[in-house]
């Protein structure tokens, strides 16, 4: 087997914060900044997606440009002089963070709290009457939850659902301006939409607006604790593609499934089975997960050692999606977990 090598790319030189940086032609300013060691906040940038540059937190100042430019999508050019921490750039980032934090709930956005502090953002100064994106939580299926009160409209879920990855086109941006929302046609429930529950939108959501139902429930119950979670990357056992799964395990139970974005085959994408079909490995009666003492220190219980036959478990978590072969419950049951399921056991190691 030969591994195709990309043709060599010419290096171009630009200046970032006074330091000369060399990057391959076609790289973005963000790539160049990574090389120069700057830490630029990003929200709508996704490593597996074409940048939409909608959030504008990554703006930097480029000499000769009338406006600031988004680092995530603007290609580096030879001779460019980039300032990542100029007063203008920092001011815009600060205001953008304030605008976001004053209109949506950033409490589950990784990095947001630190950025707000770093840029001295004070979202409270817009007053208590400042308009917010007040959206009720949408819980219309058993697999994932849409809490658009946390949505910053980064378009990543739309892109992942649509032409960039899944080609399901179940969701799109609807409305205009401040009233824009991510929606199915006529705001129909997901179970009535083109959604195939691949969960690739959940994978790319930067704010936690889309989350596993398990995560949502545990957060509501107050038992979600990322410090007690382990992450184990393994291989999905459902078919021969060999997608990588990253199992997030808390108290010896799988609470969330991700996939490494640098996987050259799937780029972080999964199907409904890989993403949500894990119940069979832990289909044993366990003491309440809240009792953390049992997990601490003790070797992991082989969760699916026996009794997780093909007919049990999986179907419980996959919603009825009428007419949606090949991802319907029937298919999942037929494929079934093989006896030597690699997801079984030792999730903590």
């Amino acid at each position, binding site marked *: 087997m030969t591994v195709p090598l990309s043709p060599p790319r010419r290096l171009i030189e630009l200046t970032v914060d006074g330091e000369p940086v060399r990057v391959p032609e076609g790289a973005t300013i963000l790539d160049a900044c990574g090389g120069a060691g700057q830490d630029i906040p990003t929200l709508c940038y996704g490593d597996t997606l074409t940048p939409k*540059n*909608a*959030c*504008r*937190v990554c*703006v930097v100042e480029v000499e000769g440009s009338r*406006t*600031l430019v*988004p680092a995530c*999508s603007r*290609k580096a050019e030879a001779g460019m002089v980039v300032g990542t921490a100029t007063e*203008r750039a920092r*001011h*815009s980032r*600060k*205001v*953008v963070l304030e*605008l*976001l934090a*004053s*209109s949506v709930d950033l409490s589950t956005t990784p990095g947001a709290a630190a950025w707000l502090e770093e840029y001295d953002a*004070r979202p*409270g*100064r*817009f*007053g208590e*009457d*400042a*308009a917010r994106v007040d959206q009720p939580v949408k819980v219309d299926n058993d697999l994932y939850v849409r809490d658009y009160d946390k949505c*910053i*409209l980064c378009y990543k879920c739309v892109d992942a659902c*649509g032409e960039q990855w899944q*080609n399901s*086109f*179940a*969701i*799109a*941006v*609807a*409305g*205009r*301006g*401040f*009233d*824009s929302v991510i*929606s*199915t*046609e*006529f705001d*129909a429930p997901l179970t*009535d*939409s*083109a959604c195939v529950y691949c969960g690739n939108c959940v994978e790319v959501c930067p704010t936690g607006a889309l989350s596993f139902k398990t995560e949502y429930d545990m957060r509501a119950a107050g038992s979600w604790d990322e410090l007690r979670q382990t992450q184990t990357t393994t291989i999905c056992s459902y078919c021969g593609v060999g997608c990588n799964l990253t199992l997030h395990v808390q108290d010896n139970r799988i609470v969330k499934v991700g996939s490494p974005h640098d996987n050259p085959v799937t780029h972080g994408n999964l199907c409904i089975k890989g993403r949500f079909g894990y119940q069979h490995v832990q289909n044993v009666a366990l003491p309440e997960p809240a009792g953390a003492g049992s997990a601490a220190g003790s070797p992991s219980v082989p969760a699916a050692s026996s009794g997780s036959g093909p007919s049990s478990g999986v179907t419980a978590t996959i919603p009825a999606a009428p007419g*949606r072969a090949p991802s319907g419950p029937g298919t999942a049951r037929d494929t079934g977990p093989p006896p030597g399921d690699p997801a079984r056991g030792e999730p903590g190691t």
Partner: protein
Amino acid sequence: MDLRFRDAEPLAEERAAVDALLGPPPSSWAGGQRTDEDLRFAAGGHQAREQRDLLLPALHAVNDRVGWISEGALDYICRRLTIPPAEAYGVAGFYALFSLKPRPTRVLHVCTDLACHANGAEDVRRRVQERLGPPGASWSPSPCLGLCERAPAAVALEAGEHPRAVVYAPVRADEAELDPASPVSPAPPPASPAAGGPLAPAPPLPPMPSASTRDAGPGGTLQADTTSELRTANGVRTPDGVREAHGPVFGAGAHGPALGERGNDGLAELPEPPVRAAVPQAGDPSLVLLRRVGAVDPESLDDYRATGGYSALRRAFQLGPLGVIQEVTEAGLVGRGGAAFPAGRKWAAVAGQPDRPHYLVCNADESEPGTFKDRVLMEGDPYAVIEAMTIAAYATGCTHGYLYIRGEYPRAIGLLENAIATARARGLLGEDILGQGLAFDIEIRRGAGAYICGEETAIFNSIEGYRGEPRSKPPYPVEKGLFGKPTLVNNVETLVNVPPILLHGGAAYAQVGTEVSTGTKLFCVSGNVAAPGVYEVPFGATLRELLTLAGGVPGNLRAVLLGGAAGAFVRPDELDVPLTFEGTRAAGTTLGSGVVLVLDDGVDMARILLRIAEFFRDESCGQCVPCRVGTVRQEEALHRLSTRPRADDLVLLREVGQAMRDASICGLGQTAWNAVESAIDRLSVFPAAGTLTQETP
């Protein structure tokens, strides 16, 4: 593309409206009757998907027919065009003129924007509200309708088999009280002419009796001819699949009720004033761009040719494409849409792109509050737009042109449809123009109420059937524009400058005006001025001279807004600013699209600023954060300032404004704070706030 539908059935009339545009469905895959044949093949692939650009016309077709877009209708459109329903829903909801909820067939749009505000729009709004209740399905306040010279204005859009648009300008709210036939019920039945009551009588539209000597009158033979041509122009695709232009059926004059037919609501219908009324200078021999407006019949190609029409195109053929670009460059023509980019450079850049095909887009989505010059040009001299587009296409190698016009311009749409159909019939558009082997045709695309679609890349997304959101640049339109191909996008006024340039030579054109700003410029003078209208003056005239030309300001001048909502205010002591791109820039303001909105001291400036802020909040597409949230925060701060001035809020405005200017994707967000900033800095609109000490947080 494996689409999923929710099995909502369209009504027969919705289906008919879509079929009238697209032709009958070819198979059950596209929503037709299911036959055994359909089981033998699957429709799909690029061929099925590449009709996406017909989404906006299809939405218009349904909206024109039934007044709103039901789930069944949207589903049917999606089946016909192979579009995911969620995306089509997002597109339909993007435009203000569409409704995804049931509403009456007649909807009144009452302009509450700047020029109308300065002329009593609040009174009109209050009276309409007294009659019809709070804004909702049957009426809504509207951004600028481009009827500023006849402010205050309103437009009623009536859906039906023969959709109509009725322009009320000026609205005479005081007369409405005397009208015994006015509906008084606050909730009129859907099919009734809900808002007809409180408003002054108005004519059916269009085409209208023109200002020409050859006035055939409504329903006359002239219009009957026009209509038959329109039918083909609005019809379906030709059998070989070549798409015919399919503009709206709006303009079909002979379809519409004749005068008096709507008499049962007690309103006599008066004709809309001819376009000549918008040009106080009409007949002045020194006019260049406006010389035909009001002087010739806008429907007649013969009149156009008798006054020098199409001689510029012949001249272009003599010069050759490079020669044309050379002349335009020498003339120093810059874009008139607001950005003032040199037209010659843009044309040369498109012409030099190896990628094919090249597209031409004429930007007639004139929506900047206070701007109506393009409407007057299109209503008064539509063939000039067509000829100019043909010249541009010849010079830059475009084979297909789109004329994207805002949906609120029914008369202009009707006249342009007529002009295109006539030109096509006479061999001035089509496969072999004037026997010179030039192939070029024009399709009209009607906007649906979105200011942002006038942005040069948002217009591409709108034409392509996506949400009208601006794209990030680079790449620029000259490299990757419409359908990802090199595209020349020019404003109507810019294009209309081209025939005079070719006829008189670029060098002669450059003699007019100043060194940097060459030629003449159209100014839209409105507000508290004696004779509002479109004025053509050479670059270099001062604002004072222009106001004098417009009869002066009867009241006590408070401020002049230059450039529209995205422009800046100037004070009465700054009237000697030269009206050139460089002169206004030096004075810290802008020419923008040529808006000169005059405000006297009877106008509440705080209220004007609030209206500007409302405008940007409503018209922000919502794509980028600084604009989506920033315009809302700006409006909130102005609300607070107008009641309780605090220095904090001024600081807030400045900081948010700076971030919008620096970090927004497109010109809308980047300029949304301009006018407010200039009002605060130059007019001291909130003096109390400036003197207060800043409260500590």
